[in-house]
């Protein structure tokens, strides 16, 4: 039980509400009850919650992962679904009921073509450097485009590439996955086909190949934020 989380895994700072409950003395609630608890906790949250965050809210000894799985199958086919977002879980209304929800639609700024293309390139090629994005689009990426995507929390800075200049890379976020209803970046539509067709390769143009028509790469090194810890969550394998 509770195999995914040994105690050292839990943030040592957080002690949840019933710290006096001794796991030795009180057995954890039955799975059905744990499922109810996870249901309540996830229903209450607008943001996706990781298993660890869920577990921190449950009494000691609960198996959050198992409860989530049970809950997920319970909601299969319902108007509300328990969806996976990266390593986290969230209730979202079913996509096929969108036509009922016109009144709830939030007007969003329409993304420019440059921004949508840049976003797609980051999602499909991640982790990807600015130079690589420019190589694919054939134009310089304006700083505003990446800023906008980062501000929308769809893109974040990943690990630095271990190549000369140590350029920063860009990856998509959990918010991105949530927004587009993707369980993980591996579920991007057509990803396998694109990879099979070799279209996700980054073939650097050799000597005398298509000219590099913009001053790319010069601003890679100054991108700052070098030490943002990049967990591998969304990096494509």
């Amino acid at each position, binding site marked *: 039980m509770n195999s995914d989380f040994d105690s050292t895994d839990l943030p040592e700072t957080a002690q949840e509400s019933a710290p006096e409950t001794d796991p030795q003395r009180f057995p954890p609630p039955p799975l059905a009850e744990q499922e109810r608890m996870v249901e309540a906790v996830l229903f209450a949250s607008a943001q996706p919650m990781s298993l660890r965050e869920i577990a921190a809210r449950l009494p000691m000894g609960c198996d959050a992962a198992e409860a989530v799985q049970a809950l997920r199958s319970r909601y299969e086919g319902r108007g509300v679904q328990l969806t996976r977002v990266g390593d986290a879980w969230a209730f979202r*209304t079913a996509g096929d009921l969108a036509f009922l929800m016109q009144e709830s639609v939030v007007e969003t700024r329409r993304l420019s073509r440059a921004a949508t293309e840049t976003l797609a390139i980051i999602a499909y090629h991640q982790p990807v450097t600015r130079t690589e994005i420019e190589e694919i689009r054939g134009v310089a990426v304006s700083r505003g485009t990446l800023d906008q995507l980062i501000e929308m929390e769809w893109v974040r800075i990943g690990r630095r590439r271990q190549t000369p200049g140590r350029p920063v890379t860009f990856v998509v976020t959990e918010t991105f996955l949530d927004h587009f*209803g993707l369980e993980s970046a591996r579920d991007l539509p057509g990803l396998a086909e694109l990879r099979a067709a070799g279209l996700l390769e980054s073939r650097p143009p050799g000597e005398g190949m298509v000219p590099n028509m913009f001053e790319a790469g010069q601003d890679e090194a100054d991108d700052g934020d070098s030490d943002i810890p990049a967990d591998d969550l969304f990096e494509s394998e």
Partner: protein
Amino acid sequence: MTKVPYLTPVPDPAPEPAEQAAAPQSVDERRAEEVLVVDVSGFEGPLDLLLTLSRTQKVDLMQISVLELADQYLAFVEQARALRIELAADYLVMAAWLAFLKSRLLLPPDPEAEGPSAEDMAAHLAFQLERLQAMREAAARLMARDRLGQDRFVRGAPETVTRARQVSWQAGLIDLMRAYARLRTKDEFRPYAYDRRDVFTMEQALERVRGLIGFAGDWTQLADFLPDGWESDPRRRRSATAATFAATLELARQGALELRQTESFAPITIRRRPQ
């Protein structure tokens, strides 16, 4: 035959194209033309332009004729020139490269030549176009998904989790004393105490200026207030000047004197404020 896109000049309104009114076109023809009726600023760089041109070939990008594409591009650039449209440098760089590629493709291969063959270069260009096209389609597919806030929704009334947060700080007396000891020990290695003989303090300057200002009824240069023996050594002079200037600012703030400077870097003069 190479089809040349029609260009509207950017600065001036386009002369009314005659052929538009003339021969009736098929819907397809017109649509194809409309796609290309764009000014250069409508393209996102040469690669985008090449991709748009390649559509007129009506073949899979895999079978694209790079030679024909090069012709189309060069004709486009030629027309832009004829219309005196300012093309960004990268369009011209691409034109030069394509002209070079075209000549390589037409000439028999030179066995002595080094570097990639013309075919490799053409293949790479085709790959780039295909990859750009694939990313465009991927972007469209992505944007067409059921999106949060538009097709799928979050809980409208999320419940706030009340968080009773207590922070207990770990710091003992010993940490505090160690920190202090560390700072004090550091002093032995770092001469943070400096020689005060060459420092004229603001207090001293205040006292001096306060005493002297009574005698200076008219505008007097700040430099004249420097104490004796502080003018020659540059370090001492700098310290005395700074302190005296700060002191006059302080006295001006208190309303005891007035400051004047006729222009930037001109000498600063002061006088007692007239009663």
